[in-house]
């Protein structure tokens, strides 16, 4: 299973762009990279998923370099409501049980 490493915590201010980087040096060929967001006392919520290069949706962008050993979640113009824990997961989508949630990155957005 691919192990991921992310910063434990980050601080930002409203209106700034936030980039959270995840390292996954032993990512396998069939592995996808998935990011989730979790608010206190709620279940995680899917944000974005990608395999290579760049993926963008209405919420975030995901940048994946050619070697795929890391990925960066980019949140444009964060607001106070973006304060949450963000998890990076790596795994083969055909084996959902192999997606491991680490401690995540606790993002605090300040006014």
């Amino acid at each position: 299973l691919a192990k991921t490493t992310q910063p434990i915590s980050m601080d930002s201010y409203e209106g700034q762009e936030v980039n959270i980087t995840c390292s996954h040096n032993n990512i396998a060929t069939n592995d996808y990279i998935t990011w989730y967001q979790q608010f206190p006392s709620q279940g995680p919520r899917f944000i974005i998923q990608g395999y290579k290069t760049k993926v963008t949706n209405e919420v975030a962008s995901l940048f994946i370099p050619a070697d795929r050993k890391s990925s960066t979640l980019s949140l444009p113009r964060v607001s106070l409501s973006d304060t949450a824990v963000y998890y990076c997961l790596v795994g083969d989508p055909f084996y959902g049980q192999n997606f491991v949630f680490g401690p995540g990155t606790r993002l605090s957005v300040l006014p």
Partner: protein
Amino acid sequence: SQTIHQWPATLVQPVGSPLSLECTVEGTSNPNLYWYRQAAGRGLQLLFYSVGIGQISSEVPQNLSASRPQDRQFILSSKKLLLSDSGFYLCAWSASGGTLAKNIQYFGAGTRLSVL
């Protein structure tokens, strides 16, 4: 659209009492189902997953068990709760096959269990 229901939202149980948490999914067939536990300030620990009725795989040996009596019903149980069973329990589902949804997991609202 698909929805996932998990209950109860909170539960306070004495040590040694039994436990039954239920999770149901609507709007999809043959989902993959998962039970997670989350300790305060920690990541999620996968407890059980199921790819079909009666098919349960355990990730961590413990005081808990899971059952899937129907396609979209997943139950987490214990015969005798321990103090260490306290935590936030989450049920999740993902589409089987993986070709379209790429095994994205969708979570319920969770159950906060306190064992006293």
